[in-house]
């Protein structure tokens, strides 16, 4: 799997187009945003699959309202890295965005049934999920961290042995915990707040979450630190899109490249993940294949 | 002259059933008013509760305008027979005719509009005031307007001496008061025939006599009545005919003089020997 993440951009582009858009050759990507833009308008070129959305001109984005710093509502404003990125991508394609928040467990079914055009909730494009729903290329890899009390004795991966480590149900941390903390007991939580509350009350020893997401907690709770960070490069976050909507998949992938090139991606990355090292490789990232 | 004229009261029964006009307060002579009473004929009815046969072919007749009292020991099936007569129980055999027509096949609602009933346990509606207990069926079944129903109801309550309890709930009434409301409520519907189950069990002698005179008056005006009672004095005075039941059967049937003064069967003789 690690070979996927380290693969050059071009190679992963090829790999993804093979998975997500087998019907359309690489040409559809090289056609670039302009072509996608054209396809949104009537009379598009015949060779390029059309970008279809629920409501013409609007990209209906399913997201979560409690996924700080990737997707959240603050003062009735949608915020977060994923949301700003998808807004930029949509603009590129010529669409305006509309956000709808939904419980994470209902997000994929809503996307695969076409109720939402796309999902943006830092969801990993795992092999399992790829069976049901299509994905764009990966747009985010990052670091995971373990939040713990200063006094807990957890300082590195090895010291988690025999400890109770909490994490968010359905998150990529599940897979990483298995790999990196094999001797820890994994405790699942439905949201990070209840996990951190459990950490505070002493029923778990550490809470494994997105490194960035852990930072606000260390500020709120002065007794908490986040000593371990784990690179999570082989399960990049990707936008789920209905498998059948190959046009949109292609257009999003192309626009992603544009947004990386024009610097928007990095700007957003620094805005939402301050102080976090920028990965050596910028997106698009290849998704794992079985 | 009837009781109702004597006391200067307007009886509910004073209002022609064909009209929904308010009661005329000027006082039409009561005896001008006649009920279109219907005769009842109970023919060989049988009835069981599960394995327990409680009626073994019961037959008797109540002619139009006649008062028939049904007497007999506890558990002999008197209440059950009465309940069959307005289809609260379905007989397992036999037939019951109202004016020659089988009641077992007619609409139960229509039957019950024609044959009223007063229960041993009164069955007043505890969630409604006494007045509402009276007006509810008047408005729903007789389709009277609110005002007319209210007038009929108040007249009916006055007739049983309970005008001052109109706003009470049934639980706030004494036993006798409850029973009188139940009687007034059934009569206000102006049925052709009435079934009374222990209609005077909670009443003191004054009220018993009042009910007696009311029945006499009703009968004179054509109403057919079947009355289950265990007060022999009442049966003797009220009934045109007396039916004696025992163990789910009619043992004797005849005019009160004959039943009380010249009983034929040993069972009835024994029964009457106990009357205080």
């Amino acid at each position: 799997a690690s070979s996927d993440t380290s693969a050059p951009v071009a190679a992963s582009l090829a790999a993804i187009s093979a998975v997500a858009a087998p019907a359309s050759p690489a040409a559809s990507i090289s056609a670039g945003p302009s072509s996608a833009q054209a396809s949104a308008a009537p009379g598009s070129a015949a060779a390029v699959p059309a970008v279809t959305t629920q409501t013409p001109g609007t990209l209906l984005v399913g997201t979560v309202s409690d996924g700080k710093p990737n997707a959240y509502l603050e003062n009735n404003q949608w915020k977060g890295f994923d949301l700003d990125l998808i807004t930029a991508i949509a603009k590129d394609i010529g669409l305006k965005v509309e956000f709808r928040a939904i419980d994470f467990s209902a997000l994929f079914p809503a996307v695969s049934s076409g109720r939402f055009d796309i999902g943006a909730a830092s969801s990993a494009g795992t092999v399992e999920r790829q069976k049901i729903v299509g994905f764009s290329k990966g747009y985010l890899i990052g670091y995971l961290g373990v939040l713990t009390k200063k006094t807990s004795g957890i300082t590195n991966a090895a010291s988690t042995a025999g400890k109770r480590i909490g994490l968010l149900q359905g998150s990529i941390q599940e897979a990483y915990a298995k790999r990196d903390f094999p001797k820890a007991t994994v405790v699942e939580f439905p949201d990070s707040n209840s996990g951190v509350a459990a950490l505070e009350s002493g029923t778990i020893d550490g809470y494994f979450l997105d490194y960035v997401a852990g930072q606000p907690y260390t500020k709120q709770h002065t007794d908490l630190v986040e000593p371990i960070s784990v690179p999570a490069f082989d399960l990049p976050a990707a936008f789920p899109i209905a498998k059948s909507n190959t046009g949109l998949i292609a257009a999003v992938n192309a626009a992603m490249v544009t947004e990386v090139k024009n610097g928007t991606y990095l700007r957003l990355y620094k805005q939402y993940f301050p102080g976090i090292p920028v990965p050596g490789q910028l997106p698009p990232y290849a998704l794992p294949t079985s | 002259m009837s009781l109702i004229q004597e006391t200067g009261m307007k009886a509910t029964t004073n209002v022609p059933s064909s009209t929904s006009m308010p009661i005329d307060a000027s006082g039409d002579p009561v005896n001008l008013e006649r009920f279109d009473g219907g005769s009842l004929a109970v023919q060989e009815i049988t009835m069981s509760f599960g394995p327990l046969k409680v009626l073994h072919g019961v037959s008797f007749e109540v002619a139009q305008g006649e008062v028939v009292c049904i007497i007999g020991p506890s558990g002999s099936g008197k209440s059950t027979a009465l309940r069959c007569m307005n289809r609260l129980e379905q007989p397992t055999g036999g037939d019951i005719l109202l004016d020659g027509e089988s009641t077992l096949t007619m609409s139960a609602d229509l039957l019950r509009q024609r044959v009223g009933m007063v229960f041993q346990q009164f069955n007043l509606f505890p969630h409604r005031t006494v007045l509402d207990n009276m007006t509810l069926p008047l408005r729903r079944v007789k389709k009277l307007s609110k005002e007319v129903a209210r007038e009929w109801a108040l007249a009916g309550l006055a007739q049983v001496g309970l005008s001052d309890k109109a706003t009470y709930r049934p639980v706030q009434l004494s036993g006798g008061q409850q029973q009188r409301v139940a009687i007034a409520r059934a009569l206000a519907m102006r049925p052709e025939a009435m079934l009374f189950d222990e209609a005077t069990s909670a009443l003191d002698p004054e009220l018993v006599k009042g009910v007696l005179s009311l029945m006499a008056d009703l009968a004179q005006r054509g109403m057919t009545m079947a009355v289950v009672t265990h007060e022999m004095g009442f049966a003797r005075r009220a009934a045109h005919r007396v039916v004696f039941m025992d163990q789910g059967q009619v043992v004797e049937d005849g005019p009160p003089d004959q039943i009380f003064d010249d009983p034929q069967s040993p069972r009835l003789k024994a029964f009457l020997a106990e009357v205080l």
Partner: protein
Amino acid sequence: MNNFLETFFNWTYIKQVIPDLLATGLKNTIILAVSSSILGFVLAMVLAVMGLSARWYIRLPARIFTDVFRGLPAILTILVLGQGLAPLGMRMFGPSPYPLAILALALITAAYTGEILRAGIQSVEKGQLEGARALGMTRGSAMLLVVIPQGVRRVLPSLVNQFIAVIKDSSLVYFLGLVASEREIFRIGQDTAVTTANLSPLVAAGILYLLMTIPLTHLINFIDKRLREGRPHPVAEPLVVLDGEAAPDQPVLMPMERH
């Protein structure tokens, strides 16, 4: 302990979430809970009456409906209905998930409420139905005017339970996808809890629930008591005095001669 208070009762965060809770959440919660409760109650009454039928082919569909919609997790019902009927919903009501959520919540609460009502109606003595029917009332109006009102009164507290449960279940509308202005009380509490990394906003949502439910409970209890006991003191005066009426408690039924 201090930490516990900090996590659940941080006044700064509570203050922060209040405007949103009141302006957006309260309205949406009320819309969802009230409309699905009304629809659900009507349906429940139908279910209860069907469930009391003497005919099995009338009872059976009510039984199945109740068993299924009561037994399934609410989330699943909302998801299945929301997704299954989404195309239809789109066409009829547009993108708002509210109509379908209200329908789903109504079906769920109907299943519970139907059983509550059935129990209440069933507990009314047989004599009441008989009393009404013996007066010539149809089965329908006897049930409607005599039996059901008594039955419903007996289970008022359970109905309040159920309404409160709907208020809280209305937060499940989230499973159908919401725009910011469609969020109800709980969701706003939860979202703000995430942005502030603190559970106090959720506590604020809980307190708002209490401010809704407690006065309601006491209102219903008051009505219940009033219905049970009547006005504190019955009016002791006669309602009207008819011409020539006898004095109270002096029966006017007087003896007459043997006919």
